[in-house]
């Protein structure tokens, strides 16, 4: 594995009118890593993602990506640099057919730089990507309006939007949540393949079993603070983590 650092988050903090949503979080990520971020509801996972990808501006701290300080960049510039994300609440273009949903990312400057954007016809590339991520090619599914697709396809569509940009780092915000068991089972190999292609992944998840299959490092958040960082196997040995998960009113079933 390559030891080159791709993302460095240093002392990032953010508060919403008095509530400290993210409190002094730091971590580092090497190329090819798969980092899992877990934590109870409201522990600041999504806020952290928004801070890294520029959708929110942090109060304090810096985010360094590929050696550049991106803390003040606009979201589209960060995406243009190859750091892309999915949304927890899927955001398809619901009045467009599924395959047309991939046209905007393919239309971007990054896509024409990295190759997918100027290959023949963008519609054809879009269909190919959709097939790659599990849309049945010779059915009418890719032509259905995105607004009519079931949840599993929408999650894939989110991933497809990222893949179309040929990213270096994907941040997945709960791609497994809300999916049925069989849908998850078909998603895991997809994530593993992305990892094999050398794409660095950050996965925010509640489905721990599937997460631990792909992740090689885990961060646990609680009330905006990082309370644990280490290997997946060690997570539940840690007293603080146990307290965060079992101590409060939130009870989770793990296995």
């Amino acid at each position, binding site marked *: 594995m390559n030891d080159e650092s791709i993302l460095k988050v240093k002392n990032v903090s953010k508060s919403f009118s008095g509530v400290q949503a993210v409190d002094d979080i730091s971590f580092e990520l090497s190329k090819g890593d798969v980092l899992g971020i877990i934590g109870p509801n409201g522990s600041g996972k999504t806020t952290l993602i928004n801070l890294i990808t520029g959708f929110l501006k942090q109060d304090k701290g810096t985010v360094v990506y590929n050696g550049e300080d991106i803390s003040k960049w606009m979201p*589209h510039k960060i995406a243009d640099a190859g750091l892309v994300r999915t949304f927890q609440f899927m955001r*398809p273009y*619901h009045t467009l057919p599924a395959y047309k949903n991939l046209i905007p990312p393919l239309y971007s400057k990054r896509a024409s730089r990295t190759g997918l954007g100027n290959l023949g016809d963008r519609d054809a590339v879009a269909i190919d990507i959709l097939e790659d991520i599990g849309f049945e090619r010779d059915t009418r599914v890719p032509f259905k309006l995105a607004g009519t697709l079931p949840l599993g396809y929408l999650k894939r569509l989110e991933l497809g939007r990222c893949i179309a940009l040929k990213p270096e780092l994907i941040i997945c915000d709960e791609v497994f949540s809300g999916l049925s068991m069989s849908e998850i089972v078909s998603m895991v190999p997809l994530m593993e393949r992305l990892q094999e292609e050398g794409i660095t992944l950050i996965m925010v998840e509640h489905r721990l079993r599937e997460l631990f299959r792909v992740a090689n490092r885990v961060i646990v958040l609680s009330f905006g603070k990082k309370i644990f960082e280490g290997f997946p196997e060690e997570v539940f040995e840690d007293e603080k983590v146990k307290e965060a998960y079992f101590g409060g009113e939130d009870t989770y079933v793990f296995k």
Partner: protein
Amino acid sequence: MQELRKERLDRGVKVRSESIYAISSLKEIMFIIGPGLLLAALLLILPLFVSSYWQGVLKITGVYVLLAIGFGFLANYVGLVSLGGALFVGVGGYLSGGLNYFFDLPMIVTIPIAAVGGALICTILLLPALPLRGVYFAIVTLVYPMALSRIIVATGAFRGTDGLPGLERFPVGIGPIYLIFIVILICLYLLSRLVNYEDFGLVLRGVKDNELSIKASALHLTWYKIQAVFIAAFMGCFAGAYLTHLYGWVGTSLLAQDFSILPVAAAVVGGPGTIFGPLVGAFILVPISEAMRDYGTLRIVFYAIILVIFVVFWTEGILDYLKRKYEQFEHWVEM
């Protein structure tokens, strides 16, 4: 040496045609393009057969059609609702009028300059509201025309309330009607291609559906909105310049409420489903409005009420209703 593998990609036509069953016969092709051809033919033939009063009405209608198409394009395909068609008309009109009055440029020069330059000015004026979502664009577009007319009256620029008289006028006859109708047809053709087939147009529709996804797709959201506003402003400013040389006069009435609210009403009445909706709406509303000219501002009341009724009770609009009837079979079945 690097090993290469040949990859084959379907042509877009092949990919897309998998979503269409079959267009096999002339009859079916006519079913699809017939209404458009009929419309174009109607627009081109109509001016030949009407009285001179109705020719005048058609010219005004053309102005409103351009404004309404611009409004519909922004509202239905980019998600920006402009309550200030008067801004476009005013800027375009004053620009071409000013160039003609102060610099004696002929209208063949002033109209293109006014359309492009006016669109630039309008886009820059509206720039502050573009990065924001929601009601701000509507607010800013509503405020500008009113403020501009106050400024013109207060400072006496462009001769204040008197306006600029004696500008170059279009020759009488049907020439000017064809000018604006052909511009309308070109705009309609290009816009409907844009929003249905061009990738740029799809990005704009994406802006309407979901701004965050556009950002996450490495696209500069504001830049796309700027381009869309420029397109609509271009059409509006052309309409304003046309109006100027139609009357040979420029005044603060170019910034009046009519130009803001009637296009909105036309677009809403026509329906949001296609780029042609606003045209249908304008062809229904403007002649009625012209017929009501004797009743003064009562006609604004009239189309304000029509507007509210359509926005609240019949959002589908006329054209979408007709489209539904055209494309689908309907019949009652027993329960």
